[in-house]
């Protein structure tokens, strides 16, 4: 699974810029293989057995104890599936791209390689290496193919994330040196009992470092700007998958290796998460650009993930991982439909769009579905995820939990407002001549919706999967 994108990338390097169809086809095939493998691992994962499966391990640098160590377990399998879905639909979404096609797909596949690497790595060194690989192509992707203040956004995003890395490196290395084992293997490091002081310092470094990518308030400011500026598929990947890298890393590295540090800082985590949820909702209310609306709703949804993690209970962490998955698919759908509308109308202003559903009923329907999902309507995947998180949150942090729920109700309101203003008012005569989505271009969006609804009706497939990892994980703490 990890190999398909880089192989595709190398083939792309050899192709010429004018062979556009071939370029797209190669990208699609490598994305398709990835998706197929992701589905295969998800289905073939033996839930009864649990633990790490599909393990691959090779020594990389003996002197420093670095190894290539990947595997799949209940927590990362859903996220692998998510990445597979988003990259596949992302390539389809960008099918119409004409400028510098080859370079675009090269960078995109590089990014995806990094994402898969992060989700699967059990070696801190490789984890961080892939993490950086996933982050850096964003700069070029936004800069060249983006829109709306892209230079500012690209630079801001990259510097924020690199500053985060600047905190992560000392954190990781402190663990490495404090363990005295001379290995970056996370499973081995998990067995070491670090002194409380080390755990506290490392946890806060890693939490803030990875938290930047997870858009934890107050480190979120790059995220709406970045989403708005990025081209459609990159927004999809970015909000859908990349932000999850941050929260997943908090879970996989910070909480896994520093349980005492986690307990010490859990209050702060919950507080910041709640502020993020409330803040995201209210700032989102004031936006008129559809992408900004989604950007801020992402901040609040990622707050839910963080809140779930902060509870440190089975339900909470379950919900958080589920929410990562659901939010990923949902945001991908959001950006994908907005991207389609923007490509045609060149506007994302809510009022200018007016009654857009009368012009493009299908395209609008995609957006509305996503909005409903974001509002947490039952029957959608995110409903279950949010429910789990809030049940846990109210138990552990009653005040924050109730605040978050209240904010979410307001959030539902604002989702409806957006939907009403942009799709059900009087249609804007400028756009009347546009045709609706062609079946081929509708395909990626259909896949996303199908995923949301499938896991909305059968949440147990997902929760059961996640549980196999979360229960031993929390016992280990």
């Amino acid at each position, binding site marked *: 699974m990890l190999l398909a994108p880089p192989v595709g990338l190398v083939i792309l390097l050899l192709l010429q810029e004018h062979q556009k169809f071939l370029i797209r086809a190669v990208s699609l095939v490598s994305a398709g293989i990835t998706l197929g493998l992701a589905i295969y691992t998800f289905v073939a994962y033996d839930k009864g057995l649990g633990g790490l499966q599909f393990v691959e391990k090779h*020594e*990389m*640098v*003996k*002197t*420093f104890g670095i190894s290539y160590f990947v595997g799949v377990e209940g927590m990362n399998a859903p996220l692998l599936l998510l990445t597979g879905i988003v990259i596949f639909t992302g390539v389809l979404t960008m099918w119409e791209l004409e400028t*510098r096609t080859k*370079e675009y797909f090269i960078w995109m596949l590089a990014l995806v390689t990094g994402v898969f690497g992060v989700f699967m790595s059990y070696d801190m*060194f490789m984890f*961080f*290496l*892939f993490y*950086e*690989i996933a982050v*850096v192509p964003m*700069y*070029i992707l936004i*800069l*060249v193919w983006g829109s709306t203040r892209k*230079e500012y956004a690209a*630079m801001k995003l*990259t*510097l924020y994330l*690199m*500053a985060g*890395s*600047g*905190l992560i*490196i*000392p954190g990781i*290395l*402190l663990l*490495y*040196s404090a363990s005295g084992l001379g290995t970056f293997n996370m499973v081995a490091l998990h067995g070491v009992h670090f002194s409380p002081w080390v755990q506290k310092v490392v946890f806060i470094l890693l939490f803030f470092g990875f938290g930047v990518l997870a858009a934890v308030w107050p480190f979120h400011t790059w995220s709406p700007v970045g989403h708005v500026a990025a081209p459609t598929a990159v927004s999809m990947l970015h909000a859908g998958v990349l932000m999850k890298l941050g929260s997943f890393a908090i879970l996989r590295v910070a909480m896994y290796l520093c349980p005492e540090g986690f307990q010490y800082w859990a209050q702060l985590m919950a507080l910041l998460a709640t502020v993020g949820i409330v803040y995201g909702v209210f700032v989102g209310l004031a936006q008129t650009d559809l992408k900004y609306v989604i950007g801020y709703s992402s901040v609040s949804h990622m707050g839910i993930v963080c809140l779930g993690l902060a509870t440190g209970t089975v339900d909470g962490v379950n919900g958080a991982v589920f929410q990562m998955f659901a939010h990923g698919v949902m945001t991908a759908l959001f950006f994908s439909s907005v991207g389609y509308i923007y490509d045609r109308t060149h506007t994302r202003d809510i009022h200018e769009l007016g009654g857009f559903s009368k012009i493009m009923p299908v395209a609008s329907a995609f957006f509305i579905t996503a909005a409903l999902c974001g509002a947490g309507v039952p029957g959608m995947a995110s409903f279950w995820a949010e429910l789990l998180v809030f049940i846990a949150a109210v138990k552990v942090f009653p005040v924050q939990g109730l605040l978050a729920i209240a904010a979410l109700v307001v959030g539902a309101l604002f989702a409806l407002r957006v939907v009403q203003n942009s799709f059900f008012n009087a249609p804007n005569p400028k756009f009347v001549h546009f045709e609706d989505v062609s079946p081929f271009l509708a395909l990626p969006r259909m896949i996303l919706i199908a995923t949301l609804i499938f896991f909305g009706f059968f949440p147990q497939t997902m929760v059961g999967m996640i549980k196999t990892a979360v229960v031993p994980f929390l016992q280990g703490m």
Partner: protein
Amino acid sequence: MMNVMLFGPELYYLGAALVFFFLSLKRQVQVKGDYQIALALAAGGLVVTGLCLCQQGELFFKAYRVDLFSQIFKFALALGFFLVITISHNLAHIEERYHAEFYLFLTTTTIGMMMLVSSVELLTIYVSLELSSYSLYILVPMRRGDGIDVEAGIKYLLIGAVSSGVMLFGLSYIFGATHSTYLSDIMVQLPKLAASPIGLLGLLLTLAGFFFKLSVFPFHFWAPDVYQGAANQVTTFIATASKAAAVALLLRLAVLGTSYGYSFAQALVFLSIISMTLGNLVAIIQKDFKRLLAYSSIAHAGYFLMGILTMKEAGYIAAVYYALAYLVMNFTVFMVISEVAKDGRDLKIQELAGLWRRSPLLSLSLIVGLFALAGVPPSIGFTGKLLLFTSAMSQGYFWLVLIGAVNGTISLYYYLRVIYASYFTDDPSLGPITVSTPTRILNYALIAIVLGFGLFPDRIVELAKAAVKTVL
């Protein structure tokens, strides 16, 4: 025969220097012919140095030690020399009748550095250092220019002379305190003087000569002007091979400071932090690409010190690895400069505009090289930097690593500005750049090395591990 092999690389380059000397005597200038001879000799040098990689022994009354450590660095120097020659097919800014001299002095400075990395006696070190420096003093102002070359030459000479003076002063302290000029004897004697500061002072002053080469604060003032003022090829050599030699010697000498442990290390920590912070901050406002790289080299000097000051195996391995990595990745960037600025001018960052269109391959090399310098994976620079940080952290330098990591972010900002210029802005007046086939191959090879050894560093690390055993 054995001894010839031991001294093989040096003898070879001495012969090459003689060839260039005779070439320079000719009345008729044959630029093309000279270049082909130079290229052939450089390639031969690479082979000879490669063959002598596993030699071991001592020469000249034990003042000269040949071991894996020295041979690796000699190979690096031969590689640097070869690479610089490959981009010298177009020495636009050096007068044609001086081309042979250019090769001659480049060769002599290489010999000087090769002798430097093998020297284990203070006077030999000093003489070799001066041999390499004097050649560079001549090379820097060789550029046909508008006065900037002379300014660069004088600055380089003066600061070089001052640092040599400081170094000699330090050497006299060490000799006075230990009554020996052999590193192995000093190693035994110095711990006995741990109570008095004379050894520490002498050692730090001695290191000054190499701080100058590595452009560590406070001996960094020459770097921006020399980088900008010297011909692109000369700058390339100063920025790549010469740094590797300096790191080698710092590694050899820093071991002496082990007995001073804390205070010696603290002095280096101080220099390291100032170098990287200063270099990175000043680089942000640069407009000339080579000046920017000069400040980036000051910052990198700080990173090198990080590995050196650990005085432990892991740190030394990391420093050796990073020195080799730095040579390759910095060269990649300089190669792009000399290809884009075919007429030998100084390249402004803006002049990179539209590089992705003018030459996609060069723009790719530039991105790879710059990302490697910034420490972005999966490049050799990232792995090297992380190894350095790891070794420093293992010795408990938490704040140093934190500051180093923050510096990485700052440096990314100005590297990204260059990438922004080359990848995003466009200037229709600039035509495409033609890249010859050998240069193409060179490009692919460099990219493959930077990425390949970044992902699979084990071979190099094992080699470095074997090499530093003989030093520690």
